[in-house]
């Protein structure tokens, strides 16, 4: 059967969901596959849920969105709730098992939102806390629930801001649509301007990618 993967990713704005999705699609493009990536977010400048949809296949891709995802990646509880409609019996959910608590918005006080939500850059730099949010019950029942402590891996071994790249490495391997070297190529291309400003980010990101690529695979095959 022709390869056809539908992937939905979700997180809080600033967690790097869009970069991860874009790099995955770019890597599949480099391998000559048909790809379509579309970001989806609302009008919030801060504190919004950020979703991304990626399709990888061998035939031209139809509509940019789809009804059911083969793979779902969730970096926050709120985003997993938003992705629930895309889950089905054939879906695999990959989540960050060192889940960050999503920012709280004090709706009761007009204007407080700005102070109570985290700027994306602050979110990326944030240290993990012990408070993990309970994963919502996925009522439809899915094929697999795979937890990867991407946040912990990134914080303990590298830097908190590359946790999205750890997740990306794990996700990419699950798709069976891309090789690690094209993923690395796509990552360097996507982050070129950042890496130019701060060359130390290059080994950091490449290590994160490799850790994600290997860690989940080892867990799953056990």
């Amino acid at each position, binding site marked *: 059967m022709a390869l056809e993967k539908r992937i939905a990713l979700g997180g809080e704005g600033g967690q790097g969901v869009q970069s991860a999705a874009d790099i995955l699609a770019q890597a599949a493009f480099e391998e000559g596959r048909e*790809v*379509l990536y579309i970001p989806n977010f609302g009008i919030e400048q801060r504190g919004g849920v950020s979703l991304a949809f990626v399709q990888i296949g061998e035939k031209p*891709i139809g509509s940019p969105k789809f009804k059911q995802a083969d793979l779902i990646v969730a970096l926050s509880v709120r985003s997993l709730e938003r992705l629930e409609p895309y889950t089905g019996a054939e879906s695999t959910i990959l989540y960050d098992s060192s889940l960050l608590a999503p920012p709280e918005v004090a709706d009761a006080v007009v204007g407080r939102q700005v102070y109570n939500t985290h700027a994306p850059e602050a979110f990326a730099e944030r240290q993990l806390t012990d408070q993990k949010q309970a994963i919502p019950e996925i009522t439809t029942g899915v094929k697999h629930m795979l937890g990867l402590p991407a946040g912990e891996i990134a914080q303990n071994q590298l830097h908190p801001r590359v946790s999205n790249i750890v997740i990306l490495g794990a996700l990419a391997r699950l798709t069976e649509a891309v090789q690690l070297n094209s993923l690395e190529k796509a990552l360097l291309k996507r982050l070129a301007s950042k890496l130019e400003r701060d060359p130390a980010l290059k080994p950091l990101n490449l290590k994160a990618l490799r850790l994600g690529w290997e860690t989940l695979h080892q867990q799953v095959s056990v």
Partner: protein
Amino acid sequence: MSGKSLKEKKEEKVYPRPVSGEKRVYMSGNEVVAWAALACGAEFLCGYPITPQNEIMHFWSRLAPRYGRKFLQTEDELSAGFAALGGIMAGARCFSATAGPGTVLFQEPLAMAEMMRLPLVLVVQQRGGPSTATVVYSQQEVFLTSFGGNGEGLRVVYAPGSHQEMYDYTIKAFTTAWQYRFPTLVLGDGYQAQMKEALTIYDPPARGLEAAPAFPLVGAAGLPGVDREPAHWRNTFSVEEELFDALQPLIIDYYSAVPFLTEKETGFLEGAALVVVAHGIVGRAARAAVGELREKGFPVGFFRPLTLRPFPDEDLRKITAAGPRLLVVESAWGQLNKLVRMALGGTGAGRAEIYTYLRPGLGITAAEIVQEAENIFRGYAEQEAGEGNNV
């Protein structure tokens, strides 16, 4: 200030061609528009930011200086449109891009362009409406782009459905605008603007696509009235008859160009009992759905207008003359459907039975269209069975 014109200044330096050879790339729709405009020799973007088309301006303003092109951010869309018209009168290939409420404000410069035959190119990336609504997506600007001004809708509206078409038709829009001298619009949407997919970019002249030459409409050499006819570009008239007389050549020119302008894509029409009609990004879902339905044995065809204005009326009439029903699918509450009904009105084919699947502001997947078409066929079967029982 050196006092030199834009053209003179440009001649001082030789800039590289923006695209050389053919290149397979993966990029967003907004980036595609910027590259297409650069590749086909657009000189000046006058615009005002609005989501979801902002990146057209981002990419253009970043890339333009490398190729000797210009960018002006105005105070609003009215200014952007009129500044572009001023540039066009001075002989520069000006264009703009907008969306949603910006498309509303653009109607005034567009109407002036219709009246004065100014080749304005405008890229519209539809967002949700009415009013501010969403910054994301819809197909609700079909009527606005086709007929939005105070006038007769003497415009060309292309509706691309992929990044390849976004590139091809942005280039084509400049050719059409300068050749026919009617404002020409490229109608995309927020999904096409933001999504990334692969396409092949190319240098238009290398494929034999030479744009009609741009030339100044004012400031020609010689004394007006003595050495040459005075240039008199009017959008104001004293009395009704004067306007009526001025409109005649415009209308005649527009409608004589219609057969050369209309474009469509069709598929699986042979023996079709139901033809799915969709445009733009929804056309992709429709194409996929029709393929799937044919595999399941349903006699379904596909019709996608690539020009929404002028609409390929004749082509659709020929199809409906064979008797199929239509299923109009769109992310709006019946705007494409109105164009379809206008196309079929007054003919025998106008009695074609039209089903609709209308989802204003929502994306539409192939699976939904398959479901809808199957329901329609189930309906027929039940109806026929019912009639059979009555006999």
